[in-house]
């Protein structure tokens, strides 16, 4: 199965935890989806395991969202294929932390 280089933008605290910059690149399996990308992120950066999704259920943490190509993929099944721009590395998957109002 092919693995494609995928761009991922992490929120501030997860960048610090993984000791990386704003954007990382991982190789995700096709068809590229939130599931395959986060699998790859957790493999390459094991200190992020459990921070984006629950260890056991693999459910997205409630205060995080997934965006790509100006679309919100947070509420779709994580296996949903992402736009080809993400799969081709032209656009990143954005992991975004909720911003509390006030």
């Amino acid at each position, binding site marked *: 199965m092919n693995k494609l280089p995928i761009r991922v933008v992490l929120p501030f*605290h997860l960048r610090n935890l993984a000791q990386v910059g704003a954007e990382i690149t991982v190789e995700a399996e096709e068809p590229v989806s939130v599931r395959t990308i986060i699998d790859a992120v957790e493999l*390459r950066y094991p200190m992020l395991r*459990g921070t984006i999704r629950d260890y*056991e259920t693999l459910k997205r943490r409630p205060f995080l969202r997934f965006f790509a190509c100006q679309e919100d993929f947070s509420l779709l099944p994580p296996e949903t294929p992402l736009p080809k721009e993400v799969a081709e590395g032209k656009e990143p998957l954005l992991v975004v932390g909720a911003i509390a109002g006030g």
Partner: protein
Amino acid sequence: MSKVRVLVGTKKGAFILTADGKRDNWEVSGPFFAGWEIYHMKGSPVDTDRIYASQTSGWFGQLIQASNDGGKTWHQPGLKPGEPEMPAFPAKAPNRFVYDQSGAPLTTHAWYDGTPHPWEFKRVWHLEPSLTEANTVYAGVEDAALFKSTDGGESWNELSGLRGHGTGPQWQPGAGGLCLHTVILSPTDPDRIVVAISSSGAFRTDDGGKTWKPINKGLVSNFMPNPTAEIGHCVHHIAMNPTRPNTLFMQKHWHVMRSDDAGDNWTKVSGNLPTDFGFVIDVHAHQPETLYVVPIKSDSEHFPIGGKLQVYRSKTGGNEWEALTNGLPQENCYVNVLRDAMAVDKLDDCGVYFGTTGGQVYVSPDAGDTWKPIVSNLPSVLSVEVQTLA
């Protein structure tokens, strides 16, 4: 010359304060894990350079951090310090706290309305390193459970006999959540552990965690339908002097209590305290009948009476208390001192330390007679521990 290292967990990171035995000039390092809630840090008594930390966030969940150099550098257990690698999953999963769901009575606890509610891991409140093994550490968590690691925090297993001993399905969260916040290891009996759970009570095992029993006889909680029920008491903290492991002191929601039989029976020792509501309690390192509390006005007003921050000390094991005010603000002070935010060092004159929700950490190098702030403007302090170093 002796040194002390004070480990401070705050709502926005961890700080480490160090001084020599005079405890006069302090070096402050941090913030570590900036922006994260650090519920608790504690060093191993076996290897004082080994420190464990509970790092948590409403966004990103629970992490465990460890240091092997006294807090200079940190890593998640199982991951190479300072750089990522790829350990096999799930053999090394330092952040993975999985409840034993093997059957009733481990499936549910009571929700606020009394209905059954599934157990859900939320965070680690307290880390208690073993007295004999540097790689063994206990974690008290919310929802209330006790976990144990024997590999330095790389993996965790629940001591499920606690939730499963019989009363677990009746445990109900209070305002602070259903948290297991106190873990006391017996220095004389390696199989004895005492824990306390907010709004459920105190519990003890005498067989290393296999079986447990409630130890709440003598506690009276007038807000409960049955004020002397076996469980349901809102224990805020318990302290012990290691030279007298059968004597325990408790700050309950209201009332300061003592037990001289390892928790089997409790007696109220609030005595002349101006209020016996509070969170912290601790015992002098060398005088097992000298104890400290910080009276808080009430459960409705979580601040000192009259805006005067006062530690109260009893040299008689309770009942007779004196206010300690020298060096503490005596006007316009409306901070709180949370349950894990007081500690004592082991130097001859026994230093006492506490942190406030206003970000101050105070030290008394003379067992409470005089106080001064080490730092005054940290984020809200969640926990304070101290290591006495040779």
